[in-house]
Protein backbone atom coordinates (compact mmCIF):
# COMPACT_ATOMS: atom_id res chain seq x y z
CA UNK A 1 0.00 0.00 0.00
CA UNK A 2 2.81 2.32 0.76
CA UNK A 3 4.05 2.09 -2.81
CA UNK A 4 0.70 3.35 -4.03
CA UNK A 5 0.70 6.39 -1.84
CA UNK A 6 2.51 8.77 -4.21
CA UNK A 7 -0.04 8.33 -6.97
CA UNK A 8 -3.11 9.27 -4.94
CA UNK A 9 -1.15 12.19 -3.47
CA UNK A 10 -0.26 13.38 -6.94
CA UNK A 11 -3.88 13.05 -7.95
CA UNK A 12 -4.97 15.12 -4.96
CA UNK A 13 -2.35 17.71 -5.85
CA UNK A 14 -3.73 17.84 -9.36
CA UNK A 15 -7.19 18.45 -8.04
CA UNK A 16 -5.84 21.28 -5.92
CA UNK A 17 -4.16 22.80 -8.95
CA UNK A 18 -7.34 22.64 -10.98
CA UNK A 19 -9.34 24.03 -8.08
CA UNK A 20 -6.87 26.85 -7.57
CA UNK A 21 -6.92 27.67 -11.27
CA UNK A 22 -10.71 27.73 -11.29
CA UNK A 23 -10.73 29.97 -8.23
CA UNK A 24 -8.23 32.32 -9.84
CA UNK A 25 -10.36 32.47 -12.99
CA UNK A 26 -13.47 33.25 -10.92
CA UNK A 27 -11.62 35.97 -9.04
CA UNK A 28 -10.36 37.46 -12.30
CA UNK A 29 -13.83 37.36 -13.86
CA UNK A 30 -15.28 39.06 -10.79
CA UNK A 31 -12.60 41.72 -10.79
CA UNK A 32 -13.35 42.52 -14.44
CA UNK A 33 -17.12 42.50 -14.16
CA UNK A 34 -17.51 44.17 -10.75
CA UNK A 35 -17.15 47.79 -11.91
CA UNK A 36 -19.51 47.22 -14.83
CA UNK A 37 -22.11 45.57 -12.60
CA UNK A 38 -21.88 48.39 -10.10
CA UNK A 39 -22.21 50.98 -12.81
CA UNK A 40 -25.02 49.25 -14.67
CA UNK A 41 -27.18 48.20 -11.75
CA UNK A 42 -26.11 50.67 -9.10
CA UNK A 43 -24.81 47.85 -6.91
CA UNK A 44 -22.10 48.35 -4.37
CA UNK A 45 -20.13 45.14 -4.91
CA UNK A 46 -16.77 45.29 -3.14
CA UNK A 47 -13.65 45.43 -5.25
CA UNK A 48 -10.11 44.17 -4.70
CA UNK A 49 -8.13 47.33 -5.06
CA UNK A 50 -7.85 50.21 -2.64
CA UNK A 51 -10.67 51.96 -4.50
CA UNK A 52 -13.01 49.51 -2.88
CA UNK A 53 -12.47 51.37 0.36
CA UNK A 54 -13.40 54.67 -1.20
CA UNK A 55 -16.62 53.39 -2.71
CA UNK A 56 -19.69 54.15 -0.62
CA UNK A 57 -21.08 51.20 1.19
CA UNK A 58 -24.71 50.31 1.02
CA UNK A 59 -24.45 48.80 4.47
CA UNK A 60 -23.88 52.06 6.30
CA UNK A 61 -25.50 55.44 5.87
CA UNK A 62 -23.13 57.93 4.20
CA UNK A 63 -23.41 60.24 7.18
CA UNK A 64 -21.74 57.58 9.31
CA UNK A 65 -18.89 56.89 6.93
CA UNK A 66 -15.46 58.33 7.37
CA UNK A 67 -14.51 61.04 4.93
CA UNK A 68 -12.33 58.63 2.99
CA UNK A 69 -15.46 56.69 2.08
CA UNK A 70 -17.51 59.65 0.99
CA UNK A 71 -18.63 59.50 -2.63
CA UNK A 72 -16.41 61.25 -5.14
CA UNK A 73 -17.51 63.93 -7.56
CA UNK A 74 -20.10 62.61 -9.94
CA UNK A 75 -18.62 63.59 -13.25
CA UNK A 76 -15.24 63.84 -14.86
CA UNK A 77 -16.18 67.44 -15.58
CA UNK A 78 -15.61 68.19 -11.93
CA UNK A 79 -11.94 67.66 -12.57
CA UNK A 80 -12.00 71.19 -13.96
CA UNK A 81 -13.47 72.47 -10.75
CA UNK A 82 -11.03 73.70 -8.11
CA UNK A 83 -12.94 71.85 -5.48
CA UNK A 84 -11.79 71.38 -1.95
CA UNK A 85 -10.67 67.90 -1.17
CA UNK A 86 -10.10 66.11 2.05
CA UNK A 87 -6.64 64.76 2.83
CA UNK A 88 -7.83 61.42 1.52
CA UNK A 89 -8.81 63.01 -1.76
CA UNK A 90 -12.52 62.53 -1.27
CA UNK A 91 -14.79 65.38 -2.23
CA UNK A 92 -16.17 67.30 0.71
CA UNK A 93 -19.79 66.86 1.66
CA UNK A 94 -19.95 70.08 3.62
CA UNK A 95 -20.97 73.32 1.95
CA UNK A 96 -18.36 75.56 0.40
CA UNK A 97 -17.79 78.60 2.57
CA UNK A 98 -17.54 80.85 -0.47
CA UNK A 99 -21.29 80.89 -0.95
CA UNK A 100 -21.86 82.20 2.53
CA UNK A 101 -21.75 85.61 0.94
CA UNK A 102 -22.04 85.42 -2.85
CA UNK A 103 -22.09 89.19 -3.19
CA UNK A 104 -18.68 89.53 -1.60
CA UNK A 105 -16.99 86.90 -3.73
CA UNK A 106 -14.41 87.83 -6.31
CA UNK A 107 -16.48 88.94 -9.30
CA UNK A 108 -13.80 87.97 -11.79
CA UNK A 109 -13.38 84.40 -10.57
CA UNK A 110 -16.23 82.03 -11.38
CA UNK A 111 -17.97 80.91 -8.23
CA UNK A 112 -17.06 77.27 -7.57
CA UNK A 113 -15.09 77.52 -10.78
CA UNK A 114 -18.36 77.32 -12.68
CA UNK A 115 -20.72 80.19 -12.10
CA UNK A 116 -20.40 83.58 -13.72
CA UNK A 117 -21.75 86.51 -11.75
CA UNK A 118 -24.13 88.73 -13.69
CA UNK A 119 -24.61 91.30 -10.95
CA UNK A 120 -27.33 91.68 -8.34
CA UNK A 121 -26.30 88.34 -6.82
CA UNK A 122 -27.21 86.45 -9.97
CA UNK A 123 -24.99 83.60 -11.07
CA UNK A 124 -25.12 81.87 -14.46
CA UNK A 125 -24.07 78.25 -14.90
CA UNK A 126 -22.28 76.93 -18.02
CA UNK A 127 -25.52 75.26 -19.15
CA UNK A 128 -27.42 78.53 -18.80
CA UNK A 129 -29.17 78.09 -15.47
CA UNK A 130 -29.61 81.15 -13.30
CA UNK A 131 -29.15 81.10 -9.53
CA UNK A 132 -30.66 84.15 -7.87
CA UNK A 133 -31.78 85.46 -4.53
CA UNK A 134 -34.76 83.68 -3.04
CA UNK A 135 -35.81 80.73 -0.92
CA UNK A 136 -35.90 80.42 2.82
CA UNK A 137 -32.11 80.50 2.87
CA UNK A 138 -31.98 83.84 1.07
CA UNK A 139 -30.26 82.60 -2.09
CA UNK A 140 -30.91 79.62 -4.33
CA UNK A 141 -27.28 78.55 -4.01
CA UNK A 142 -27.64 78.52 -0.25
CA UNK A 143 -30.72 76.39 -0.71
CA UNK A 144 -28.82 74.03 -2.99
CA UNK A 145 -26.27 73.70 -0.22
CA UNK A 146 -28.93 71.98 1.84
CA UNK A 147 -28.70 69.17 -0.70
CA UNK A 148 -24.99 68.50 -0.43
CA UNK A 149 -25.32 67.16 3.11
CA UNK A 150 -27.78 64.83 4.73
CA UNK A 151 -30.41 65.97 7.19
CA UNK A 152 -31.33 62.67 8.81
CA UNK A 153 -33.86 64.29 11.15
CA UNK A 154 -35.83 65.83 8.33
CA UNK A 155 -39.22 64.13 7.84
CA UNK A 156 -39.53 62.34 4.52
CA UNK A 157 -36.81 62.03 1.90
CA UNK A 158 -33.95 64.47 1.46
CA UNK A 159 -31.86 64.11 -1.69
CA UNK A 160 -28.11 64.59 -1.25
CA UNK A 161 -25.76 65.29 -4.17
CA UNK A 162 -22.35 63.69 -4.40
CA UNK A 163 -19.31 65.91 -4.69
CA UNK A 164 -20.22 68.91 -2.57
CA UNK A 165 -21.35 72.13 -4.23
CA UNK A 166 -19.16 71.74 -7.33
CA UNK A 167 -20.48 68.23 -7.86
CA UNK A 168 -24.05 69.37 -7.33
CA UNK A 169 -23.72 72.24 -9.80
CA UNK A 170 -22.18 70.01 -12.45
CA UNK A 171 -24.89 67.39 -11.96
CA UNK A 172 -27.68 69.97 -12.14
CA UNK A 173 -26.19 71.36 -15.35
CA UNK A 174 -25.94 67.87 -16.83
CA UNK A 175 -29.55 67.20 -15.85
CA UNK A 176 -30.67 70.48 -17.43
CA UNK A 177 -28.88 69.72 -20.69
CA UNK A 178 -30.46 66.29 -20.79
CA UNK A 179 -33.87 67.76 -19.99
CA UNK A 180 -33.56 70.22 -22.87
CA UNK A 181 -32.63 67.32 -25.13
CA UNK A 182 -35.71 65.47 -23.88
CA UNK A 183 -33.77 62.36 -23.04
CA UNK A 184 -35.05 60.19 -20.19
CA UNK A 185 -36.92 63.16 -18.83
CA UNK A 186 -40.43 63.75 -17.56
CA UNK A 187 -41.78 67.26 -17.54
CA UNK A 188 -44.62 68.86 -15.60
CA UNK A 189 -45.72 72.44 -16.19
CA UNK A 190 -47.64 74.41 -13.60
CA UNK A 191 -48.19 78.13 -14.15
CA UNK A 192 -44.76 79.60 -14.78
CA UNK A 193 -43.01 76.59 -13.35
CA UNK A 194 -41.49 73.56 -14.97
CA UNK A 195 -40.63 70.49 -12.94
CA UNK A 196 -38.23 68.13 -14.68
CA UNK A 197 -37.35 64.66 -13.45
CA UNK A 198 -34.24 63.50 -15.26
CA UNK A 199 -32.78 60.01 -15.16
CA UNK A 200 -29.03 60.41 -15.51
CA UNK A 201 -28.46 56.68 -15.53
CA UNK A 202 -25.69 56.72 -12.96
CA UNK A 203 -25.23 57.56 -9.33
CA UNK A 204 -25.50 61.28 -8.62
CA UNK A 205 -26.11 61.11 -4.88
CA UNK A 206 -28.25 59.32 -2.38
CA UNK A 207 -31.56 59.61 -0.59
CA UNK A 208 -31.17 60.94 2.92
CA UNK A 209 -33.60 62.37 5.43
CA UNK A 210 -35.57 60.16 7.77
CA UNK A 211 -37.05 58.18 4.88
CA UNK A 212 -33.65 57.69 3.30
CA UNK A 213 -32.25 56.56 6.63
CA UNK A 214 -35.08 54.08 6.99
CA UNK A 215 -34.30 52.73 3.51
CA UNK A 216 -30.56 52.56 4.26
CA UNK A 217 -29.76 55.58 2.11
CA UNK A 218 -30.36 54.18 -1.39
CA UNK A 219 -28.38 55.68 -4.23
CA UNK A 220 -30.00 58.32 -6.41
CA UNK A 221 -29.70 58.33 -10.19
CA UNK A 222 -32.37 60.92 -10.97
CA UNK A 223 -32.52 64.65 -10.46
CA UNK A 224 -35.60 66.74 -9.90
CA UNK A 225 -35.18 70.23 -11.23
CA UNK A 226 -37.74 72.95 -10.52
CA UNK A 227 -37.35 75.96 -12.78
CA UNK A 228 -39.05 79.20 -13.68
CA UNK A 229 -37.74 79.67 -17.20
CA UNK A 230 -33.99 79.45 -16.61
CA UNK A 231 -34.17 80.34 -12.90
CA UNK A 232 -33.46 77.50 -10.52
CA UNK A 233 -36.02 77.20 -7.74
CA UNK A 234 -34.64 73.95 -6.37
CA UNK A 235 -32.87 70.81 -7.45
CA UNK A 236 -32.15 67.58 -5.67
CA UNK A 237 -31.37 63.94 -6.39
CA UNK A 238 -33.92 61.19 -5.94
Amino acid at each position, binding site marked *: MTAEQPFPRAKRGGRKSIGGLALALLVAAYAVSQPQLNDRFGWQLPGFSSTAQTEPSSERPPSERPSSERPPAVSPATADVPSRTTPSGAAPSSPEPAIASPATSNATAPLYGLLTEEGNERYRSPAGLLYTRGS*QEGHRLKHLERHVADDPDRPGPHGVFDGGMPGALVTVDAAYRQALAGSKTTRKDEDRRTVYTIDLGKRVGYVGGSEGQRRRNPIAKRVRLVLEQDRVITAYPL
Partner: protein
Amino acid sequence: MPTPRHSVGPCPSCGDGLGGIRIYTSPGGTTYPLVVCDECDAVWTEPDLSRRPTFPDPEDARSPIDGQPLWGADSHWADLAECAACGWLAQVDPTLHHHGPLPADDDPLATPPADVPPADVPAADVPPADHGDAS
Protein backbone atom coordinates in the same frame (compact mmCIF):
# COMPACT_ATOMS: atom_id res chain seq x y z
CA MET B 1 -34.87 76.55 11.56
CA PRO B 2 -35.20 75.61 7.88
CA THR B 3 -37.49 72.61 8.36
CA PRO B 4 -41.16 73.06 9.25
CA ARG B 5 -42.13 71.65 12.61
CA HIS B 6 -45.59 70.66 11.45
CA SER B 7 -46.64 69.91 7.90
CA VAL B 8 -49.91 69.04 6.26
CA GLY B 9 -48.21 66.81 3.67
CA PRO B 10 -45.47 66.50 1.09
CA CYS B 11 -45.54 69.20 -1.55
CA PRO B 12 -47.49 67.94 -4.59
CA SER B 13 -45.71 70.42 -6.81
CA CYS B 14 -42.04 69.59 -6.25
CA GLY B 15 -42.32 66.22 -4.50
CA ASP B 16 -39.78 66.25 -1.71
CA GLY B 17 -40.76 69.55 -0.09
CA LEU B 18 -42.83 69.75 3.05
CA GLY B 19 -46.04 71.78 3.10
CA GLY B 20 -45.29 73.36 6.44
CA ILE B 21 -47.59 75.57 8.49
CA ARG B 22 -46.12 79.02 8.89
CA ILE B 23 -47.46 81.85 11.04
CA TYR B 24 -47.38 85.45 9.83
CA THR B 25 -47.86 88.59 11.89
CA SER B 26 -49.40 91.46 9.99
CA PRO B 27 -48.37 95.06 10.68
CA GLY B 28 -51.54 95.50 12.75
CA GLY B 29 -50.48 92.66 15.03
CA THR B 30 -52.97 90.10 13.80
CA THR B 31 -51.68 86.73 12.75
CA TYR B 32 -52.63 84.28 10.07
CA PRO B 33 -51.28 80.94 8.82
CA LEU B 34 -50.11 79.80 5.42
CA VAL B 35 -48.93 76.47 4.12
CA VAL B 36 -45.54 77.00 2.51
CA CYS B 37 -43.32 74.45 0.80
CA ASP B 38 -39.87 74.68 2.33
CA GLU B 39 -38.36 73.34 -0.89
CA CYS B 40 -40.03 75.26 -3.73
CA ASP B 41 -41.87 78.15 -2.00
CA ALA B 42 -45.31 77.03 -3.22
CA VAL B 43 -48.00 78.66 -1.05
CA TRP B 44 -51.47 77.57 -0.01
CA THR B 45 -53.83 79.80 1.96
CA GLU B 46 -55.75 76.75 3.17
CA PRO B 47 -54.38 73.49 4.60
CA ASP B 48 -55.51 71.56 1.53
CA LEU B 49 -52.70 70.57 -0.78
CA SER B 50 -55.11 69.34 -3.43
CA ARG B 51 -55.88 72.97 -4.16
CA ARG B 52 -53.86 74.93 -6.66
CA PRO B 53 -50.90 76.64 -5.01
CA THR B 54 -49.62 80.09 -5.78
CA PHE B 55 -46.02 80.54 -6.78
CA PRO B 56 -44.51 83.77 -5.51
CA ASP B 57 -41.89 85.82 -7.30
CA PRO B 58 -38.79 83.62 -7.18
CA GLU B 59 -36.53 86.55 -6.25
CA ASP B 60 -38.94 88.43 -4.01
CA ALA B 61 -41.40 85.95 -2.53
CA ARG B 62 -44.25 87.55 -0.64
CA SER B 63 -47.34 86.47 1.23
CA PRO B 64 -50.49 86.46 -0.91
CA ILE B 65 -52.43 87.79 2.10
CA ASP B 66 -50.65 91.01 3.00
CA GLY B 67 -47.56 91.16 0.80
CA GLN B 68 -45.01 90.77 3.57
CA PRO B 69 -41.88 88.79 2.73
CA LEU B 70 -42.63 85.08 2.65
CA TRP B 71 -39.45 84.32 4.61
CA GLY B 72 -39.26 87.55 6.59
CA ALA B 73 -38.68 88.20 10.26
CA ASP B 74 -42.40 88.50 10.96
CA SER B 75 -43.06 84.86 10.25
CA HIS B 76 -41.97 81.51 11.59
CA TRP B 77 -42.84 77.83 11.41
CA ALA B 78 -45.82 77.10 13.63
CA ASP B 79 -45.61 75.09 16.81
CA LEU B 80 -48.37 72.72 17.80
CA ALA B 81 -50.28 75.28 19.86
CA GLU B 82 -50.31 77.66 16.93
CA CYS B 83 -51.52 74.92 14.59
CA ALA B 84 -54.38 74.32 16.99
CA ALA B 85 -55.08 78.01 17.48
CA CYS B 86 -55.53 78.63 13.78
CA GLY B 87 -57.79 75.62 13.46
CA TRP B 88 -55.43 73.58 11.31
CA LEU B 89 -54.46 70.95 13.86
CA ALA B 90 -56.62 68.30 12.24
CA GLN B 91 -54.78 68.78 8.95
CA VAL B 92 -51.33 68.25 10.47
CA ASP B 93 -49.69 65.04 9.32
CA PRO B 94 -48.13 63.69 12.53
CA THR B 95 -45.69 61.51 10.62
CA LEU B 96 -44.06 64.63 9.20
CA HIS B 97 -43.38 66.20 12.58
CA HIS B 98 -39.90 67.62 12.86
CA HIS B 99 -38.51 67.73 16.35
CA GLY B 100 -36.90 71.06 16.99
CA PRO B 101 -35.77 72.77 20.18
CA LEU B 102 -39.22 72.53 21.71
CA PRO B 103 -39.93 69.79 24.23
CA ALA B 104 -41.29 66.48 23.09
CA ASP B 105 -44.86 67.47 23.87
CA ASP B 106 -44.83 69.41 20.61
CA ASP B 107 -45.10 66.03 18.92
CA PRO B 108 -48.67 65.68 17.65
CA LEU B 109 -48.46 61.95 18.25
CA ALA B 110 -48.15 62.69 21.95
CA THR B 111 -50.92 64.26 24.00
CA PRO B 112 -51.29 67.94 23.04
CA PRO B 113 -50.28 70.35 25.79
CA ALA B 114 -53.01 71.52 28.11
CA ASP B 115 -52.63 75.15 27.10
CA VAL B 116 -53.47 74.46 23.46
CA PRO B 117 -56.44 76.73 22.70
CA PRO B 118 -59.54 75.22 21.20
CA ALA B 119 -59.44 74.79 17.48
CA ASP B 120 -62.30 77.27 16.87
CA VAL B 121 -60.31 80.30 18.04
CA PRO B 122 -60.06 82.76 15.14
CA ALA B 123 -56.67 82.84 13.55
CA ALA B 124 -56.41 86.56 14.22
CA ASP B 125 -56.38 85.86 17.96
CA VAL B 126 -53.32 83.65 17.83
CA PRO B 127 -50.69 85.36 19.96
CA PRO B 128 -47.52 86.13 18.07
CA ALA B 129 -44.64 83.98 19.13
CA ASP B 130 -40.98 84.79 18.86
CA HIS B 131 -39.19 81.61 17.90
CA GLY B 132 -36.23 83.26 16.33
CA ASP B 133 -36.33 80.97 13.34
CA ALA B 134 -37.35 83.49 10.73
CA SER B 135 -34.83 83.94 8.00
